[in-house]
């Protein structure tokens, strides 16, 4: 009994939490062992973040007990949790960008760390411990995403953390940075630190985790050693039904050339030329920062270019602004859904209609009836889950928000649909639906340019793949004939 207790660092028993209208957590129990990497998976809204916020002290639980390191924890605050040895690394980092790395690690504890000199000295040691050579005097604003993550991890270690919770730690890392993160996780585990690893990406769960807890709709469905599970089983438990395939059958509708891009040059891009065929899904593969997003933004007229020649259906077109791009029949689903895609405080219907306002006109005025009808059509066509077309879009799940953006653009009947990270942060079930929408769009005669950091997604959906590195196109592949390894090699440049 005694021994068993000391083997468990965190024990959550029968915890419940309700918000007005939703039971976010319902009788949730799980135990995290010492020195174990424990994964939590579940679709959006499964209760992962609520649980995490209860552990850190942002929310107070309604019922149940939490025992951390032998101590029962009733009410706590984020700072208290840290001091007890429980750190959380959020998806959006909580670093102060105008301060240095060292200052961030020992924020509010300079005196304990022994003044500025001690701060930088100790920060350096912590960073070295995880094999990072970031200079402790650099400002956080100058760091890459992966470096910021290193700083967060060092900060967690500085509290002598016994448990580190990582929320979607890989969401914006490149493959290379991911390997490094894996090394650090293994190293921390062998140092006796437990890790609660929350992720959408099942590959990582299989690679890093010893045990996994699957959550759905506020319940724990099961906790199992990872090696006892296969992918299909795990996905099935997450969505509550078995999904036969993660991807639909690859569409084959590619026809004659539709758009020719030549000599596209910007500050970052070097003489990009390629052709997009009608009915084709063209995938762009490259590391974050290689220039994938820059290419599509430049084509669409969202960024300044030095040179670009574009032909659509054999005719030269001038695209100087997104407005021109839209007129040429291009649709643009941006990579950052919340910042660039949605108007969060507005209704579902006005988010759908915002690229189609002309269609709503009745004489001089906008017709609310036409707007409602347009939204209702898209809601049933794309299976968007929303209480009503008039509901504020911020309350929808990520997948449904993304479907609204896609619906907005399908309504324009685009020739070319540009999709930049269309499934980022979206759960498995909704992903599949988005793939089906892509398939439907090419069936209807549109062409798609697909950018994604998830290699399997690009490889399974595209008819052709272009690899991009350092602002150049470095190769063209048929994903059905070439291995992922080969493509990745070319994308690294």
């Amino acid at each position, binding site marked *: 009994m005694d021994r068993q207790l000391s083997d468990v660092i965190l024990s959550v028993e029968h915890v419940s939490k309700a918000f007005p209208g939703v039971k976010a957590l319902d009788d949730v129990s799980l135990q995290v062992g010492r020195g174990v990497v424990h994964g939590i998976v579940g679709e959006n809204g499964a209760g992962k973040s609520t649980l995490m916020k209860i552990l850190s002290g942002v929310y107070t639980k309604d019922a149940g007990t939490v025992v951390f390191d032998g101590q029962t924890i009733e009410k706590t605050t984020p700072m208290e949790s840290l001091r007890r040895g429980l750190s959380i690394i959020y998806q959006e980092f909580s670093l102060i960008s105008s301060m240095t790395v060292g200052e961030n690690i020992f924020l509010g504890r300079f005196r304990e760390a022994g003044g500025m000199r001690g701060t930088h000295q100790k920060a350096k040691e912590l960073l070295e411990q995880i094999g990072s050579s970031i200079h402790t005097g650099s400002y956080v604003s100058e760091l890459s995403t992966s470096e910021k993550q290193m700083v967060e991890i060092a900060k967690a270690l500085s509290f002598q953390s016994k448990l580190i919770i990582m929320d979607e730690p890989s969401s914006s890392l490149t493959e290379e940075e991911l390997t490094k993160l894996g090394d650090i996780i293994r190293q921390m585990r062998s140092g006796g630190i437990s890790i609660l690893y929350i992720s959408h990406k099942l590959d990582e769960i299989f690679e890093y985790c010893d045990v996994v807890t699957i959550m759905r709709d506020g319940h724990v469905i099961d906790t199992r050693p990872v090696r006892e599970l296969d992918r299909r089983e795990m996905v099935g438990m997450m969505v509550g039904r078995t999904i036969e395939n993660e991807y639909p059958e690859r569409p084959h509708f590619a026809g004659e050339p539709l758009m020719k891009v030549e000599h596209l040059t910007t500050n970052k891009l070097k003489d990009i030329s390629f052709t997009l065929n009608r009915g084709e899904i063209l995938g762009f593969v490259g590391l974050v920062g290689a220039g994938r997003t820059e290419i599509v933004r430049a084509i*669409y007229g*969202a960024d300044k270019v030095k040179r670009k020649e574009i032909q659509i259906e054999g005719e030269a077109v001038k695209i100087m*602004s*997104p*407005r021109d*791009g*839209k*007129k040429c029949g291009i649709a*643009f689903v*941006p990579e950052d859904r919340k*910042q*660039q*895609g*949605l*108007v*969060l*405080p*507005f209704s579902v219907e*006005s988010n759908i209609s*915002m*690229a189609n*306002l*002309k269609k*709503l*006109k009745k004489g*001089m*005025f*906008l017709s609310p009836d036409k707007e409602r009808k347009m939204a209702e059509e898209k809601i049933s066509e794309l299976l968007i889950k929303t209480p009503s077309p008039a509901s504020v879009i911020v309350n929808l799940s990520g997948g449904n928000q993304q479907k609204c953006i896609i619906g*907005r653009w399908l309504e324009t009947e685009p020739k070319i649909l540009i999709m930049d990270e269309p499934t980022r942060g979206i759960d498995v079930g909704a992903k599949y639906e988005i793939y089906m929408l892509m398939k439907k769009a090419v069936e209807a005669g549109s062409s798609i340019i697909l950018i994604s950091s998830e290699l399997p997604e690009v490889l399974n959906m595209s008819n052709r793949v272009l690899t991009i590195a350092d602002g150049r196109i470095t190769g063209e592949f048929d994903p059905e004939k070439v291995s992922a390894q080969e493509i990745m090699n070319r994308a690294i440049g």
Partner: protein
Amino acid sequence: MDAKTRIGYFVKNNLVLVTIMILAAVTALIEPKFLTVANLGNLMNQFGPLSFVALGMTLAIIGGFIDLSVAGIVSLSAVFTISMIDVLGQGGALIAGLAAGVAMGLLNAFIVVSCGALTQAKALFITYGLSAVYSAAALLYTDGATQHMSHLASRTDLFKAVGSGRAGFIPASFLLFIIIMALLHVFLTRTQTGREICLTGANITAADLCGIPVKRRITLVFVLSGVLSAFGAIVLFSRITTASPLLGANYETNAILAVVVGGTSLAGGRGSVVRTMLGVMLVILLSNCLNLLGVSTYLQSVCKGAVLIIAIWLDRRRVK
């Protein structure tokens, strides 16, 4: 839903209206004359210049900006219009004055757009700077002297009608205000351009990527704010028959106060000119009530500030 919760909802959603009713009731109890026809006409009269500036400010704030230049625009367009009465006649002067408002709005928009200052904070400083420029131009134009309308030889009945004419007990300026407000309300809620202004104000990046001509919409917002401020200036000097080159001082803060108290969100995109009318009404009633209570002007400023802070706090809570 029982009666109690229904009242609760009504109070929550119409806080401004409820406050206005309470203030009116309190004032009526203290001062029985408050409810006479003459006093109601008086109250409507007080809507005057500020209400027009506040309408323009509403558009600017819904479009995602705060136009601090309105103080300068009021000063410069007032002294400019009054000096043009002798040169162009009253009709010509009126048009020239409004054109000056349009021109200053265009200049605001041109500088904001060409500097790429497309965030509220950046544009705030540009319009603040331009306000100083317009105020200084008004001082230079007049050599610092107050301009008088009554001393001029020309006919001024048009301006008199705008400033202090009445239809029955309703002041002409109030009628004009109601008409312009109704037009703007329809414009914002029912036209494509109006919707595009709201979308631009709420998320300029998303609006741009959807093909909405955001720069043109921003320009329109500043032009409307400029021309409405110029109109407010005309109403103001017509009523007092003089225009000092410092006439517009503090108009920007009072206009922002009215807009935000009315419930238009400083975050952009959401709001309405009708709410602004309620905001203006609240500001007027508040000072009326404080005057009747014999509160000193210094303390009245404190009250205004407190009301603004409460309004912003309520707005933040609504966002969450």
